[in-house]
């Protein structure tokens, strides 16, 4: 029994050993005192990609690096930086990829914004044809 517990404990401890043992940064898991600032930081954190766990946002991830990125976001918001400035700071380093929100001013994302409009137009055209048919 004791041996089994040891093995289970070992299994649980390994993933921890893969990251640092320092305590998380101040604002990694603590909200900003100002509710308005925290809301802005939280909204931004939902839209930033965690770099080590790639499918998650930094708001969702438990990785140390995501904690440090949350700290960075909250600290810069507290210093008065706008969410757009922080997003740009990270995009400058990691590319558009780090942001989950496609920037409308970049031509590469235009198809993404145009597709729904285009599909609606096509659908409207198809429906119109269908309504017209039984008449003659």
């Amino acid at each position: 029994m004791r041996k089994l517990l040891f093995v289970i404990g070992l299994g649980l401890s390994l993933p921890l050993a893969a990251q640092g043992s320092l305590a998380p940064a101040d604002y990694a898991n603590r909200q900003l005192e100002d509710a308005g600032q925290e809301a802005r930081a939280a909204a931004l954190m939902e839209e930033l990609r965690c770099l080590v766990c790639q499918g998650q946002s930094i708001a969702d991830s438990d990785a140390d690096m995501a904690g440090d990125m949350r700290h960075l976001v909250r600290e810069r918001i507290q210093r008065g930086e706008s969410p757009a400035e922080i997003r740009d700071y990270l995009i400058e380093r990691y590319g558009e990829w780090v942001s989950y929100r496609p920037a409308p001013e970049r031509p590469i994302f235009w198809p993404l914004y145009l597709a729904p409009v285009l599909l609606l137009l096509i659908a409207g055209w198809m429906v119109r044809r269908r309504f017209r048919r039984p008449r003659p």
Partner: protein
Amino acid sequence: MVRRFLPLLLLLSFVGIAIWALTAEREEQVRSKLVGQPVPAFALEPAIEGKPGLSSADLAQSEGPRLVNIFASWCLPCKAEAPLLDALAGEGVPIDGIAVRDRPSDILAFLDEHGDPFERLGNDPRSEAMIALGASGVPETFIVDGRGVIRYHHQGPLMPADLPALRAAWEEAR
């Protein structure tokens, strides 16, 4: 005739795109976009006693290119690349280090065990310098030229197979 096969064609093109998207090779790692640009401002306290810390100013006024190695004592691949860094330091390549989310005692133990190739060693407990440089993990290695411009970025442990590319970039950065 065309109308009849249109749905099939649509389906086939969809399947084709899906297969292409699933099998095409793609870059899984996030490379720093800062290659070719000056090192962003950062200033790190010394990570251990007796060795100076590291700041972007140190890199901007150096006599030639330097390697900047981002590592941590808790990082396994960093142990794998340590012998190569030691060998490079032995050749006279100046190497500076940034220790990410690390403790002085752990760093000292790491350097004792795996050798100490670093001239300067900055402590980066909140990954700030790491993020400023556009690195997304440990270990990563940059070549910064004498004017403080980032010239090369390598992600993951430096292995003997990476040396030709590293040396070529080094010669270019001179």
